[in-house]
C-alpha cells in the first residue's frame, strides 16, 4: 500500500507515517485508524444483536450490555464515521481545489494523532476496569452516578480526540478560503469541497460546547465540582443542552460530507453536470445554519414547555426543505444521464430511498406531541440508523470504492464490490426496517433483554439476522482490499474514465507535491471542461518553478502522547494514587515542552527545485510538463 513505488524497509515506512505531514498520507492514517475503530464498533453491534436475538438471553450480562451499547455509539460516531470522513476530506479536498497541501500541514498531523490517542484511551477502558456505560449521550445525573472509571475514560478520551477534530475543521476552513487554484471561485468548487467547507464550519462552532460540557463533566467527576449535581445547587439539564447544541450539528457534520461524496458520484456516473449546482450549495449552507437551531428536539420530553417545544418542532421540520431540494437535484442529475452502474453508483442510488425513509421518520419525530410516544423506543433507533447507516455509512463505502484508485493507485474489484453492496444493503434494511415496528409496539431503547410472548421475538430475530448480513458485507470488503493490494494492478490518472474534477487529472496516487504547476480553473468540473475540448491535461496557471514543501515532524505525535499520559494521571487522581498528580503534570510537561520546541525551533521546510521537476518529463505528473 505504499504511495510511491519504491523499495523501502518496513521500519522506515512506519517512521515515514509517524512523522508525515502530507495530507495524502494523513488521509491513509485516518482511513486505517477509522477503519479499525469501525470494525470494533461493528463487533460491539454484533454482540448487541446476538444478545437480543432471542428473548431472555444471557449472552452478555446487563452491565456489559450497557458498556457495549455506549461504546458502540461513541465509537461509531466519534472514532469511525467522523475520522473516516476527515480521511476523505484530507485525501480529496486539497486535490479538488488544486492545492499542494492543506494550509497547516503540521496541525493536520497533530489533529490526526490527537484523535488517535483519544480513541486509544477511550478503548483502553475495556482492559482497565470497565468501559463507559451511560450511553453515548452520557446524560449527567446517570454518568455522575456511574461507578468505576468508565465515564472518566469517556470524558478524557473524547476531550483529546475532540481537540484533534476541531483542529482538522479549522485547517480545512483556512485551506478552502485561501488555497484555491487560480480561477477556482467559490461557485466553481466541487460539491464535496463545499460540503467539507460547511461541515468544517459546523465543527468550528459545535465542538466548543462539547469541549465545555466535557470539561464540566470531568471536573464534576474527578475534581469535586458540582456543575450538574442538583443536590449541591447544580443543574443536570445543562449537560443535555450543551450535549445537543453540539450533538445536533454533529449529525450534520457527518451527513454533509456524505452528501458531497454522493454528489460527486451522481454526476460522474450519470456523466452529467450536477443538476442545480447553486441550489445544492444554498441547501448545504442552509442545512448547516438550521442545524444550530433545532437541538432541543432531542429533549421534547424533558419538560421545556409547549412554547419551546413548538418552536423547535417547527425549526426541525424546516430542515426537510433544503434536504428535499438536494434529493430532487440528485434525481434530476440521474434523469437523462448516461448512467454507469459501478459500485459507488449502486450505493448512491440505494442511498436515496434509504435516506428518505430516515428523513420521513425524522419529520414524524419532529411533531412534539407524537414524539412523546416514540421517545426512547426502537423507533428512534431505527430512525437514526436509517440516516446514519443509509446516509453516512453508504457514503463511506461508496467513497472507499470511488476514491480507492486515487488514494492507492489500484482499483477495488467491482465484482466483489457488488457482492459487498448486496449483502450490506439487504442486511441494513433487514436489521433496521423491522425496528420501526418493534418501537411502535413498545420495545424501549437500551434494554438488555426482553420477555418472550410479547410480540417482539420474531422482529428481534429478523433484525439480528440482518446484522449478520451486514457483517458478511464488511468482511467481503476487507477481502477485496487484501486481494486488490496483493494483485497491485496500477491504474492511470482517470480510472473511472469520467472524472470531472481536478483530482482525476493527476496520477493515482498523486506525486507528493500534487501539482507540478497549479492548474487554471475555467469553470465548474474543470477537468471535464478540458476533456470536452479534446485535451488530456489541465491548462497550467504558472510556469514551472521551485515548489516549497514542509518537512516531516515527529512533534505532533509527542504532543498527543503527552496528553494521553496526562489523562491517566487525571483519571487515577480520583483513587488517591500517589503517582497520579506527577503523571498528570509530567504528561502536560511533555505536551507543552513539545509545543515550545515547535515554536522556538525554526523549520522553513525545503524546496523541490525547478530542474528536478523539469528532468521528470513524465506527461502525467502534475499539470503539464
Amino acid at each position: 500500500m505504499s504511495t510511491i513505488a519504491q523499495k523501502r524497509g518496513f521500519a522506515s515506512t512506519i517512521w515515514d507515517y509517524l512523522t508525515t505531514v502530507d495530507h495524502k498520507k494523513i488521509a491513509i492514517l485516518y482511513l486505517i485508524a477509522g477503519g479499525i475503530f469501525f470494525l470494533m464498533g461493528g463487533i460491539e453491534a454484533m454482540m448487541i444483536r446476538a444478545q437480543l436475538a432471542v428473548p431472555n438471553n444471557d449472552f452478555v450480562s446487563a452491565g456489559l450490555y450497557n458498556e457495549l451499547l455506549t461504546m458502540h455509539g461513541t465509537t461509531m460516531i466519534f472514532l469511525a464515521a467522523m475520522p473516516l470522513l476527515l480521511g476523505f476530506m484530507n485525501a480529496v479536498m486539497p486535490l479538488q481545489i488544486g492545492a499542494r497541501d492543506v494550509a497547516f500541514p503540521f496541525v493536520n498531523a497533530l489533529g490526526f494523532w490527537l484523535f488517535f490517542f483519544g480513541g486509544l484511551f477511550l478503548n483502553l477502558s475495556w482492559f482497565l476496569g470497565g468501559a463507559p456505560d451511560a450511553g453515548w449521550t452520557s446524560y449527567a445525573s446517570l454518568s455522575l452516578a456511574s461507578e468505576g472509571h468508565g465515564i472518566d475514560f469517556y470524558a478524557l478520551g473524547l476531550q483529546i480526540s475532540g481537540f484533534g477534530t476541531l483542529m482538522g475543521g479549522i485547517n480545512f476552513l483556512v485551506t478552502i478560503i485561501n488555497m484555491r487554484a487560480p480561477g477556482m471561485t467559490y461557485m466553481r468548487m466541487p460539491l464535496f469541497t463545499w460540503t467539507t467547507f460547511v461541515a468544517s464550519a459546523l465543527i468550528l462552532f459545535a465542538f466548543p460546547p462539547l469541549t465545555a460540557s466535557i470539561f464540566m463533566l470531568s471536573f464534576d467527576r474527578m475534581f469535586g465540582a458540582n456543575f450538574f449535581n442538583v443536590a449541591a445547587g447544580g443543574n443536570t439539564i445543562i449537560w443535555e443542552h450543551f450535549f445537543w447544541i453540539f450533538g445536533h450539528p454533529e449529525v450534520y457534520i457527518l451527513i454533509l460530507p456524505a452528501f458531497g461524496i454522493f454528489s460527486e458520484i451522481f454526476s460522474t456516473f450519470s456523466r452529467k453536470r450536477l443538476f442545480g449546482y447553486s441550489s445544492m450549495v444554498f441547501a448545504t449552507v442552509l442545512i448547516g445554519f438550521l442545524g444550530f437551531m433545532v437541538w432541543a428536539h432531542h429533549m421534547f420530553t424533558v419538560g421545556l414547555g409547549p412554547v419551546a417545544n413548538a418552536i423547535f418542532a417547527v425549526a426541525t421540520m424546516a430542515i426537510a426543505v433544503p434536504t428535499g431540494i438536494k434529493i430532487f437535484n440528485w434525481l434530476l442529475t440521474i434523469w437523462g444521464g448516461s448512467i454507469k452502474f459501478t459500485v459507488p453508483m449502486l450505493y448512491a442510488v440505494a442511498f436515496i430511498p434509504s435516506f428518505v425513509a430516515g428523513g420521513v421518520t425524522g419529520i414524524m419525530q419532529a411533531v412534539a406531541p407524537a414524539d412523546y410516544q416514540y421517545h426512547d423506543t426502537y423507533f428512534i433507533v431505527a430512525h437514526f440508523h436509517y440516516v446514519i447507516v443509509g446516509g453516512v455509512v453508504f457514503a463511506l463505502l461508496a467513497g472507499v470504492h470511488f476514491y480507492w484508485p486515487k488514494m492507492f493507485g489500484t482499483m477495488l474489484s467491482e465484482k466483489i464490490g457488488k457482492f459487498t453492496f448486496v449483502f450490506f444493503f439487504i442486511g441494513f434494511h433487514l436489521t433496521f426496517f423491522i425496528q420501526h415496528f418493534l418501537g411502535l409496539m413498545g420495545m424501549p431503547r437500551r434494554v438488555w433483554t426482553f420477555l418472550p410472548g410479547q410480540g417482539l421475538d420474531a422482529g428481534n430475530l429478523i433484525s439480528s439476522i440482518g446484522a449478520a448480513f451486514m457483517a458478511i458485507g464488511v468482511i467481503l470488503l476487507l477481502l477485496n482490499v487484501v486481494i486488490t493490494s496483493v494483485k497491485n494492478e496500477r491504474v492511470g490518472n482517470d480510472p473511472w474514465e469520467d472524472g470531472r474534477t481536478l483530482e482525476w487529472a493527476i496520477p493515482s496516487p498523486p506525486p507528493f507535491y500534487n501539482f507540478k504547476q497549479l492548474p487554471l480553473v475555467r469553470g465548474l468540473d474543470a477537468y471535464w471542461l478540458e476533456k470536452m475540448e479534446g485535451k488530456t491535461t489541465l491548462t497550467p496557471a504558472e510556469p514551472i518553478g521551485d515548489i516549497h514543501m514542509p518537512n516531516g515532524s515527529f512533534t505532533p505525535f509527542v504532543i498527543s502522547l503527552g496528553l494521553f499520559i496526562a489523562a491517566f494521571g487525571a483519571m487515577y487522581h480520583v483513587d488517591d494514587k500517589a503517582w497520579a498528580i506527577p503523571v498528570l503534570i509530567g504528561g502536560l510537561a511533555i505536551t507543552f515542552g513539545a509545543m515550545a520546541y515547535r515554536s522556538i525551533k525554526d523549520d522553513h521546510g525545503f524546496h523541490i527545485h525547478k530542474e528536478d521537476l523539469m528532468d521528470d518529463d513524465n506527461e502525467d505528473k502534475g499539470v503539464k510538463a
Partner: protein
Amino acid sequence: MVNNQSNSNNPRLNYDFRRKKNAEGMRIQVATFTLMIFFTVVSFVAVAADFSKWFVIPFILLLAVVQVGFQLYYFMHMSEKGHEAPSLFMWSGITVAFVTVLAFMTIIWW
C-alpha cells in the same frame, strides 16, 4: 495596512491615492476614538447620576455593542476588502453564541 499592499516595486505607484486613503483612514480612526472615549464617559455618568438600573444596564450594554462594532470595523478594518470570510465567521459565531445564551436564559433557568 491592507490598502498599502502593492505588487509593484515602484514605491511611487499610486502614491497620491494611497496617501489620500491613509489620511481618510486616520481621520475616521481619530473620530471613532473620540466617540469611544465619549461613550465611556457617558456610561460612567449614567451610573453616577443614579438612574434606574432598568435604564442603566441596557444602556451600557448598547454602548458596549456599538463600541465592539467600532473596534471591529474601524480599528481592525473589517469593512475593507478581503475581510469577508473572517466577518462571516465572526457573525455566525456571535449568532450561535447568542441563540445558546438566549435559550439558556429562557428555557433552563425558568
